């Protein structure tokens, strides 16, 4: 057998393949080394792995025309674009080219397989996080009543970031939220590494910055390519982060795994800002209520105190009144005793007086009577002594110069006047004989 030329051999191979193989196959493989050429054709490899070990791989082409329709269908169903690491179910035709060798042309890709595949991977990640106790680890933090110091992980140029910051800074209540951006890619192959590095930076500064929370936001832009938020490493980093993490990734489809592990999951950056501000509002409303209660309880306390003082005053007044009236009573009592004692005394005195009066009367009467009697006696005596009566009884009165003769010093020759009841006799003393 004479040797074949290379082209003869390759032709032989091509014919064999053409005869032996079906025109198309459905194959399952993982996309690797995915790249789009400037003309729009897409080249990649379909790989079969066991763990990290590559068991088989084959060069694959997806021509521009096919790629457009396949990619559009894939994205609308799965919400993500074709990319490395993705497991796909592809309809392929084996192609052999004498220069370029063996490759396959991809005719179609079944998006529902990838969707299921992604769901499976997602579930596996969730299961793993659950087993490792990471799923609600970040949720263990109790949020402070006011989340005021935050780090923002976002793309600086994203519309969502600008709106978010604006919403925080321009809030109509004048609340101040301290925020700082830690820029990160939010989609594409580098997104996970970029997000992890942003989180690392925040963690390294936490000692100094003492943040209340970290906010991961991604607003606006395409709804595609959220796979980075389903990544296990990102989820684990969020779960184990030392402060609460909020997500506002802004997507329509089911929650990403980042949402599941986050402390608080909100749909959009706007919702995150509203949530943060509502914490401020609630706290301030509580302050208002505290003030009201303070006011109420203070007033009540003062009222009670005033009442007590009033009661004291009333009691003091009543006691004083009572005391005064007791004193009055006792004074009246004494007065009436004095009065009755005085009356008694008066009565005794007047009795005494009466008896004295009576005594005086009776004694004066008897005195008068005695005087009367004496007078009468004297009268009688007087009557006896009356010179007339004496004279009538034969006695006479002899006077010398008007003086009774026994009182005068009669001498011989003196003229005597002798008085009888019915005559006056003048005589001259002849002789005086002394007894």
């Amino acid at each position, binding site marked *: 057998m004479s040797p074949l030329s290379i082209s003869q051999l390759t032709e032989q191979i091509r014919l064999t393949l053409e005869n032996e193989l079906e025109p198309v196959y459905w194959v399952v493989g993982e996309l690797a080394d995915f790249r789009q050429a400037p003309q729009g054709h897409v080249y990649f490899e379909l790989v079969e792995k066991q763990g990290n070990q590559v068991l088989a791989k084959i060069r694959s082409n997806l021509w521009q025309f096919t790629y457009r329709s396949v990619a559009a269908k894939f994205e609308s169903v799965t919400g993500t674009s074709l990319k490395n690491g993705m497991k796909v179910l592809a309809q392929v035709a084996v192609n052999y080219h004498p220069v370029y060798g063996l490759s396959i042309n991809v005719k179609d890709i079944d998006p529902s397989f990838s969707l299921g595949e992604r769901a499976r991977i997602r579930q596996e990640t969730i299961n793993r996080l659950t087993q490792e106790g990471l799923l609600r680890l970040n949720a263990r933090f109790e949020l402070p009543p006011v989340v005021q110091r935050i780090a923002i992980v976002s793309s600086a140029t994203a519309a969502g970031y600008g709106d978010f910051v604006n919403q925080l800074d321009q809030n109509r209540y004048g609340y101040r939220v301290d925020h700082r951006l830690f820029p990160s890619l939010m989609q594409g192959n580098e997104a996970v590494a970029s997000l992890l590095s942003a989180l690392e930076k925040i963690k390294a500064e936490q000692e100094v910055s003492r943040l209340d929370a970290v906010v991961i936001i991604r607003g606006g832009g395409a709804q595609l390519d959220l796979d980075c938020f389903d990544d296990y490493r990102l989820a684990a980093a969020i779960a184990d982060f030392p402060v609460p993490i909020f997500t506002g990734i802004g997507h329509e489809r089911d929650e990403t795994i980042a949402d599941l592990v986050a402390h608080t999951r909100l749909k959009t950056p706007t919702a995150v800002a509203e949530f943060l501000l509502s914490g401020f509002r609630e706290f301030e409303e509580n302050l208002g209520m505290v003030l009201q209660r*303070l006011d109420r309880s203070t007033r009540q306390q003062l009222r009670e105190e005033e009442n007590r003082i009033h009661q004291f005053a009333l009691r003091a007044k009543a006691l004083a009144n009572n005391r005064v009236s007791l004193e009055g009573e006792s004074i009246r009592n004494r007065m009436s005793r004095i009065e009755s004692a005085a009356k008694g005394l008066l009565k005794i005195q007047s009795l005494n007086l009466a008896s004295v009066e009576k005594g005086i009367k009776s004694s004066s009467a008897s005195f008068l009577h005695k005087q009367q009697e004496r007078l009468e006696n004297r009268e009688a005596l007087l009557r006896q002594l009356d010179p007339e009566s004496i004279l009538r009884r034969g006695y006479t009165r002899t006077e010398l110069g008007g003086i009774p003769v026994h009182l005068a010093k009669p001498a011989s020759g003196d003229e005597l006047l002798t008085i009888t009841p019915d005559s006056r006799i003048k005589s001259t003393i002849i002789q005086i004989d002394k007894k």
Partner: protein
Amino acid sequence: MKEQSYTEAMARLENILGQLEEGNKSVDELSALVKEAAELVKYCRAKLRSTESDIQEAFQDI
């Protein structure tokens, strides 16, 4: 006034309210407690609207 977190401030306010609502405080104590509570509310409101460094400056004299 020492730097307080919102949580601490609210806890202290609740504590003061509790004491007042029990109603067994003297008027002298009442006045001091009400003053403290009012300061806390003022502090919190200011803190909601400014950075901590602003706050520290504002309350330097208190």
